[in-house]
């Protein structure tokens, strides 16, 4: 349990109580990101180089998608592979050529590192270069690590997008400022944002990742980027190395977060206040209408977040400010203070944020606090329900469109539903 250590002393920032905790962690590894990423980039294939455990994990996480000729697979290392590294590269090349022959529609292949491949130091970036040369021009091959030792759940998306950044075309030096929205969003959400930006007169607006491997957006000194997700530390760094500038903003969850996020872009692109208000008014009105019925259900409900995706802080902000919920503890696997600065400023003073995890200790705190709703992973949800605690399983927040005005009601509903359900069941 990565060097168990009890909670450290509070730090104070924005009047919050921030602490680190180390110990056993109940979280997914970054390989899980493949499950949504492969649906976003429609001609990419994700090949995990790992063990049977990795294949089993993806199968468990991907569920029935595994049967639909999905664009991901695992090259399972066996005993022979562990004998010598040279042999392993040959084996990998053979697996990749079989794969490419079977799936000729694939334009981009990600070699995804796992714990076993990282521990034996199999050099996947060299393998990617080698394979890129031999498969050019039909298929580009990139690599990133989704291993549990390096990445937690959504950090797999960060590693993937960061590997794409060096591949993005260079934007002309004298180009007009462009807006880049970073982070995989559901297509429907992406399109909503594109419409609002266009009504504000901001353009061109591009999205990373693009829906096609060959259509990745350009980047350069004039690129202003907005993070749509809070877990993109490495991607942001890579974009900045290519000259792009981050627009500080809260994340587009709930009406307030969405407005703040859009406002950051509007300010950077000099959109007049009236035009901004006109572009956002219909969305705001609809979000307000959709959120209203859930307020009564969530008001003053005490909510406890276990760490999972790094979405916890923006979600806690939405629940406390727009829904009137109370925050018992907000766990997050990793806290990027720079990217979450705007979010933390909006949290109620005294909110307890715990970065990292010591599972049994955290479960003890949760049991003692007896929150009205606990947001946690599927390994904990039923056991906590059996102890009489209402839970909301967190993975759904990654697979359901929740960003933007028109999803604000859906987002509130995800948290209200387990509470409503409890009032309905009489047995």
């Amino acid at each position, binding site marked *: 349990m990565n060097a168990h250590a009890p909670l450290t002393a509070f730090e104070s920032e924005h009047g919050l109580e921030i602490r680190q905790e180390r110990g056993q962690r109940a979280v997914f590894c970054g390989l899980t990101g493949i499950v949504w990423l492969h649906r976003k980039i429609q001609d990419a294939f994700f090949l995990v180089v790992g063990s049977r455990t990795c294949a089993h994990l993806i199968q468990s996480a*991907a569920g029935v998608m595994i049967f639909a000729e999905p664009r991901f697979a695992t*090259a*399972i290392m066996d005993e022979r592979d*562990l004998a010598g590294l040279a042999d392993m590269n040959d084996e990998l090349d053979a697996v990749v050529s079989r794969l490419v022959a079977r799936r000729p529609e694939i334009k981009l292949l990600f070699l995804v590192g796992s714990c076993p491949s990282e521990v034996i130091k199999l050099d996947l970036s060299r393998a990617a270069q080698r394979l890129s040369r031999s498969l050019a021009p039909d298929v580009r091959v990139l690599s990133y690590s989704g291993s549990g030792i390096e990445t937690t759940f959504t950090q797999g998306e960060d590693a993937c997008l960061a590997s794409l950044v060096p591949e993005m075309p260079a934007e002309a030096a004298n180009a007009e400022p462009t807006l880049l929205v970073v982070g995989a969003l559901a297509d429907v959400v992406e399109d909503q944002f594109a419409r609002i930006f266009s009504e504000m007169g901001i353009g061109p607006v591009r999205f990373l990742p693009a829906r096609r491997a060959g259509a990745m957006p350009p980047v350069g000194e004039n690129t202003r980027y907005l993070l749509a997700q809070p877990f993109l530390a490495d991607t942001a760094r890579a974009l900045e190395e290519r000259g792009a500038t981050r627009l500080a903003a809260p994340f587009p969850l709930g009406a307030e977060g969405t407005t703040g996020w859009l406002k950051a872009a509007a300010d950077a692109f000099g959109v007049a206040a009236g035009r901004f208000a006109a572009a956002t008014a219909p969305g705001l009105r609809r979000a307000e209408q959709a959120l209203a019925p859930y307020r009564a259900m969530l008001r003053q409900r005490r909510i406890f977040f276990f760490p999972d995706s790094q979405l916890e802080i923006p979600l806690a902000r939405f629940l406390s400010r727009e829904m009137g919920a109370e925050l018992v503890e907000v766990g997050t696997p990793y806290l990027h203070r720079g990217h979450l600065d705007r979010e933390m400023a909006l949290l109620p003073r005294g909110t307890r944020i715990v970065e990292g995890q010591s599972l049994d200790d955290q479960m003890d705190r949760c049991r003692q606090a007896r929150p009205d709703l606990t947001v946690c992973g599927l*390994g904990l949800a039923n056991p906590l329900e059996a102890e009489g605690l209402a839970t909301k399983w967190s993975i*759904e927040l990654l697979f359901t469109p929740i960003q933007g005005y028109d999803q604000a009601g859906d987002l509130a509903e995800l948290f209200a539903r387990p509470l409503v359900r409890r009032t309905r069941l009489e047995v």
Partner: protein
Amino acid sequence: MQLTVWTYEGPPHIGAMRVATAMRGLHYVLHAPQGDTYADLLFTMIERRDARPPVTYTTFQARDLGSDTAAIFKDAVAAAYERFRPEAMIVGASCTAELIQDDPGGLAKALALPIPVIPLDLPAYQKKENWGASETFYRLVRTLAVPVKPAAPRETRRPLCNILGPTALGFRHRDDLVEIRKLLDALGIDVNVVAPLGASPSDLGRLGAADFNVVLYPEIARAAGQHLQKTFGQPMVETVPIGVAASIRFVEEVATIAGVDPSPVLSGAPSRLPWYSRSVDSTYLTGKRVFIFGDATHALAAARIAATELGFKVVGLGSYAREFAREIRAEAALHGIEATITDDYLEVEAAIQASAAELVLGTQMERHIAKRLGLPCAVISAPIHVQDFPARHSPQMGFEGANVLFDTWVHPLMMGLEEHLLGMFREDSEFHADAAPSHLGPGHSPVPPPSAGYDTHASRGPHGSPLLAGEGQGEVCDLSGDGPHLTPALSFQERETGAPPIEPSRIEERPSSGCVNPGAPAEEGGSSGALHSTWAPDAEKELRKIPFFVRGKARANTERFARERALPLITVETLYDAKAHFGR
């Protein structure tokens, strides 16, 4: 290196977890990187357990690798002992920890805990889940079972046996155990210990007190049974009582070993399968071509039942359990076929296609292959999804198990009378020669090209009102319409991912103007002469971005919203206004 999408078995430490989770008072400390805790949800979600598995993971990270992962492991063992106070512990490494070569056994021993700590050596790059379960159970039995004097001389008491094999995450293990206990009780035999399911380490200490052992699942408990046979001289019954004949043989063997009379159990008609199978409605089952795949225990049993108790023709038999390849090959030879021994589902798919089977009996995977091929299918073996851990009693073993098997296997097929009528009216347009079983849904072609799979969903999706009644992405939506035995409700992963198994473009949408179809279930009062709105092309396009299983509801709501407001044209704005309006 093996290219894999689907694996029939997990790694061996999952097998060890299945044993640990089945037991009480045992704790497993697993040296494993962050992320390997995913395995918990197999137990909490698929089997719906109400407690976390008794497993502590070290969840080391990259930053720990430079320092002392061995110390982390020792701390984890010590902390787990302090917190859970188990009677015994097992310790081991997952695949990654195997590579960093800490020695869990040695490290745990150095702590000198006052309980037995059993090291497991589970080679993750050679072996798999079932082997891991078997090895773990064997190690536990070997370490903990000690010579015990029987409570009384054999002559003055009822015979006593152990039941070995049921684990957590086992296909119908819970209910099989109920049936076997019932049979043993009816024979006048007492049960000493059931293990691993429900047993504590101290229960394992008492295994030697029994007169004999019943090994229910050889993949898991044969090694332990053989050890007990050698060490304590306990005979072992290894006949797997799945099917009527096998159950009778099982009862006779147990009765012989225990020295009791089997006739009270065997007299009368203990199972309804024989009569059902002889009833004339079953005549059409004769010679039905069946393909069977699964773990060794269930595949072997299914082949015998199919051939001799239901009168099918076994046209394919295989297993992913290489350890049992010889037995599977021998059984296949009896049916005049070549066994399919593989863990590659694409090979299984090819074998099914080549066999021209009319019924597939297999795992979750074969269920999906069969769906793609438009074939009836029933599940007989793990790996399985959540729907195969049913709330109702549904054993596979014993005489009640045989009843369950008859129903489960026959339901996906057409009933005899139905098939007869189809034959009589073969020339009629609705009953043409290629008509598929009615439960497969309208417009289903028997063997579509593989790429057109899942069209049961597609053709039903937009029309089937049960599907559209779901309230949101997270609701249980039964995509299958009327065939829960064939295409059960969405598994939790399906709901979790919220992702359709097919590209949205493959889905046939209803005609775009919702009012032209008077029979459409979503159109309440469609014939009332109210104003009909038309969809603007961009709104129609927007609608198609909504996941298919809630799209119909979104369409209906939007049209109702537009109708109530007398809006002639539905725009993107209307769509979202309606969403906001109804979104409670």
